[in-house]
């Protein structure tokens, strides 16, 4: 999944712990090989190779549910959460320190738009050659939930799954004490926490402008790109962390809050979910209490 993954849990038997950890790891590997856009045999690559082909591809039950979810997120986010927006990364090279030209952006922007996709489960058609879909915006959060479910189904009720910062705490420490989850300082050059949140049983996901970015003429351009304009978001949180029952919901909400730019805070307040937002000056807001 391209990030550090951790399983922390309590179990009375090492043999059982080893077996269930292996089940969880196998499941993470399964999802990676199924949905990674970097692997030729993944469903994502198969779908993207079919772009321009009127026959499309037939997808399985799990992929159907993930595409339906992406469709719902698209509808519920004023069309900002768009899994076809990944092609825009070809216009924006954050290692180059160069802003792409308008034409460069338009070349890829015209391939963006979930409304252009023909999705009639289980058949997916990408009518225009060059269109791509990318599950990367939410499959890691989904995987976090899947792994947490493996522990719960095995009757292990104390622990958490962390996939590169997407976290599902499926139970507290056995004495009932919460896990302390660190929130990354979005402006620190080294990895350090700016605050800690206590979680007993919930999921947390974060989105921010600090993972991949460049600063040109004192302006920050980050990897979160508005699918309608083709430009990186501006006037948004530096980072936002959302708590929800499922990591998938937390992650989608954090991403949408960032994409909403200056409307993000109001949008997030409206959802009723607990969140922690950090602005460009590292001021902390939100409904979550921090340590």
């Amino acid at each position, binding site marked *: 999944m391209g990030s550090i993954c951790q399983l922390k849990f*309590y179990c*009375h*038997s*090492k*043999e*059982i712990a080893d*077996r269930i950890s292996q089940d969880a790891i196998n499941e993470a590997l399964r999802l990676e090989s199924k949905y990674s856009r970097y692997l030729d045999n993944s469903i994502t690559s198969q779908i993207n190779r079919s772009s321009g082909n009127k026959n499309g591809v037939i997808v*399985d*039950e*799990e992929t*159907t*549910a*993930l595409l*339906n*979810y992406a*469709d*719902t*997120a698209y*509808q*519920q*986010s004023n069309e900002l959460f768009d899994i076809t927006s990944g092609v825009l990364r070809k216009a924006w090279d954050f290692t180059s320190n160069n802003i792409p030209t308008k034409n460069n952006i338009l070349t890829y922007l015209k391939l963006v738009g979930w409304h252009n996709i023909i999705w009639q489960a289980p058949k997916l058609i990408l009518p225009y050659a060059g269109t791509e879909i990318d599950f990367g915006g939410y499959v890691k959060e*989904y995987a976090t*939930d*899947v792994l947490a*479910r493996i522990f719960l189904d095995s009757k292990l*009720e*104390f622990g958490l799954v962390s996939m590169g910062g997407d976290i599902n705490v499926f139970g507290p420490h*056995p004495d009932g004490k919460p896990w302390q989850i660190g929130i990354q300082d979005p402006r620190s050059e080294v990895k350090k926490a700016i605050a800690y949140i206590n979680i007993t*049983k*919930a999921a947390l996901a974060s989105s921010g402008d600090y993972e991949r970015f460049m600063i040109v003429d004192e302006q920050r351009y980050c990897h979160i790109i508005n699918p309608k304009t083709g430009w990186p978001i501006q006037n948004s949180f530096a980072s936002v962390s959302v*708590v*929800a*029952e*499922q990591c*998938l*919901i937390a992650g*989608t*909400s954090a991403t949408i809050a960032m994409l909403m730019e200056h409307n993000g805070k109001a949008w997030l307040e*409206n*959802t*009723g*979910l*607990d969140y922690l937002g950090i602005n460009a000056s590292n001021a902390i807001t939100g*409904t979550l209490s921090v340590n």
Partner: protein
Amino acid sequence: MKTNKNTVILALTSSAMALPAYSNNTISYRYSNYQEDDVPEGRVVTGSNKRYDIDIHQFRLLSELSDNYKFGLDIAQETLSGASPWYTSDPDNDGNPDLVMSSASIKDERTDVNISGTYINDKTNYTLTLGSSTEDDYQAQSAGIDIAKNFRNRTLDSINAGLSLSADTIDPTNSIFLNQDRLTEEAEKDSLSLYLGAGWIINKLSTIRSTLSYTKLEGYLTDPYKFLDRRPNIKTQWAWTVKYRYFLTKLSTALQTNYRYYTDDWGVDSHTLETSLYTNISESLKFIPSFRFYEQTAADFYRLPGNTDGIFYSDDSRLSNFYAFSGGLTIKVKTDSITYVISGERYVSDGNEHQGLVNYNTFTIGIDYSF
């Protein structure tokens, strides 16, 4: 966390529920056929030698309404046809009693409905169950409560206690194959059951559970379709079960062995020993072979015909001294949200000359769907 999520979150959550990782509900269906072997040739005095053939349809819904509430619904519909032993008789005086059977045109239907609700608070589960069973000549209403406390990660893993009550009404239909003391009006049977159980973690790979139960039945306990039967109107029974589970890590297999001891004040004592092997052939394929041995002593008032004196009497093979073996196999195939189940079992009983001792086959197919 605030509880009034707005419509966006509700829409996303609803959409996510289609993914197997988030399923909170399971709906299951099973079709079973139970078929008893015919009575051996020449061992029927009158009536049919074709014994019971039962078709059963079962539906189950299990729902996790929230972290604290669970709900269950079970509906079973059974159609029974076939003859049953009415009484035993030895007309040729060869010392081997034969069966006088009812006719095979008996057809009976039964519908069972059970609902249960569980409230989970901290580590304690409180469950209430209500049930109703209806057939042409029989009605039963039941209610039960169970309290289970989970300690988790301690040697004493859980304890539970429960109570259940049942009130049954018997009203034999216009059959000619009735008890000689025909019921002239409805008869009733009530039962009360209490039990106490506990579970322990023995070591890294094994657990054990044990339950002790006490049941008292009162009312009309005679079989209204057995000609000669006269049974007491009170019965007290005790049962003690032990369930042992052992996990064979390298084989990805779990061994489960259950033992049950039963005794009642009618004189019946029984032992049941059952073993199953839950074997994961692959991630989606499970094989579960199982084997069971059963043995019981006869009720004090059980006799084959010759001497029907005494206040109480029965020639029902189910109250005789006998033993039984059964073996079966269940196969489960799992896809994303659906599990397919197929199973079969063969049961044979022996131990005395009663021709009413039954051998049977059962066959089941079914499906579980998570959503």
